[in-house]
């Protein structure tokens, strides 16, 4: 079986199949990240697809080894989600798509679920990366584009928005 560094090298040289094979293991995580950020499964898949295209176009800019691929790609996905949300506010919204606040927060949802949806997408992002995708702190920081200590504090601050009695030791 071909080694990942070789596949990455071929992808960087412009081999689309190699690039796709590198991305495939990351698509599930990318989708989960986008779905939580956007709270919309269909838009999440669109965002992942767009992010994959952008990543393909920028693959030459990828620095480091194949271990850098996941934080690099997830950061592109997160950016794509931000773009998608910016696009949404001015795009035409069909009346049928307009949800009432009650529909967004049905009674069946737990308090935690409702609290999560009240966070901004950028606040949800460190939570997803840490609690859902279980990224190591180093990758988490690279995905957010900040230092590890800053990444820690972002995760903790967002988690405190969900449960205010959390200590940082309980989070990490």
């Amino acid at each position: 079986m071909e080694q990942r560094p070789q596949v990455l090298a071929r992808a960087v040289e412009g081999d689309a199949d190699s690039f796709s094979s590198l991305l495939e293991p990351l698509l599930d995580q990318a989708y989960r990240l986008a779905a939580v950020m956007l709270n919309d499964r269909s838009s999440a898949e669109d965002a992942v697809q767009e992010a994959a295209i952008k990543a393909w176009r920028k693959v030459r800019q990828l620095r480091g080894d194949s271990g850098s691929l996941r934080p690099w790609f997830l950061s592109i996905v997160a950016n794509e989600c931000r773009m998608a949300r910016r696009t949404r506010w001015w795009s035409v919204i069909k009346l049928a798509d307009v949800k009432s606040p009650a529909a967004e927060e049905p009674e069946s949802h737990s308090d935690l679920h409702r609290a999560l949806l009240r966070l901004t997408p950028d606040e949800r992002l460190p939570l997803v990366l840490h609690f859902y995708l279980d990224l190591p702190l180093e990758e988490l920081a690279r995905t957010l584009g900040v230092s590890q200590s800053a990444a820690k504090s972002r995760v903790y601050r967002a988690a405190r928005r969900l449960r205010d009695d959390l200590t940082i030791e309980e989070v990490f």
Partner: protein
Amino acid sequence: MSNDDFRRELGHTFDDVAGSPSSNLRDRVRSAVTQAPEARGPYWIAGVAACVIAVLIVGVLYVANRPNPPSLVAGGHETPSASPSPEATASPSAQPTAVPTQSALPPFVCGSTTWAPSQPASTPYTEHISDLRTGVHSGYDRLTITFDRVPGQVEFHPQSGTAFTLSPSGMRATLKGKNGILIVMQGTDMHTSYSGPTDIVTGYSGLAEVRRVEDFEGVVQLGLGVNGAACYRAFYLGSPARLVIDVQTAS
């Protein structure tokens, strides 16, 4: 709620929000990547930009250094004077960048002639004389006037004697020689691009002296002091634009 409970419940919440990706997401992404333009976008954009810049530079250089400005030789016409000599019907030579052969040169004339471009510039401009040169040749002495562009109307007035009226002072100046030729150039100046002498005493057998008689308000007059008859021929050359005046000598 314990820490483990919090993590567990948060995990379930994430699962509720996200669900699972559709089964065709992998194919969608692979197809999108395969059909997307290759990862060389910036390179071809840079290539196109380089081509556009190169075309612009070539265009600017071409406009700035047009090799063949419209020449009076090809497009000009001669207006006979009120008292033309039989030889005053000289036709202009073909427009070369080098001096044409003797057979291609116009014949010498001894009367007044006026030259004007057949297609005047749409926007009047002032032409700048940048150089004056003289030289001796077999059968004629030559004065070459170099311009930045093709000048407007040019008149040649042979005269008896070498006294000219300086303008705008009105003073009289007498040049070397026995006869003179007054060259009047409209829409021209001799002080913007020219820094050479304005009075050239050559010591030649035909063309004895060249002197600026007027350089005022877009009109330049040059007086030529000639030892023999004030017979001459004139033609234009391109690249750069030059007015060549050959003063006939005895030999």
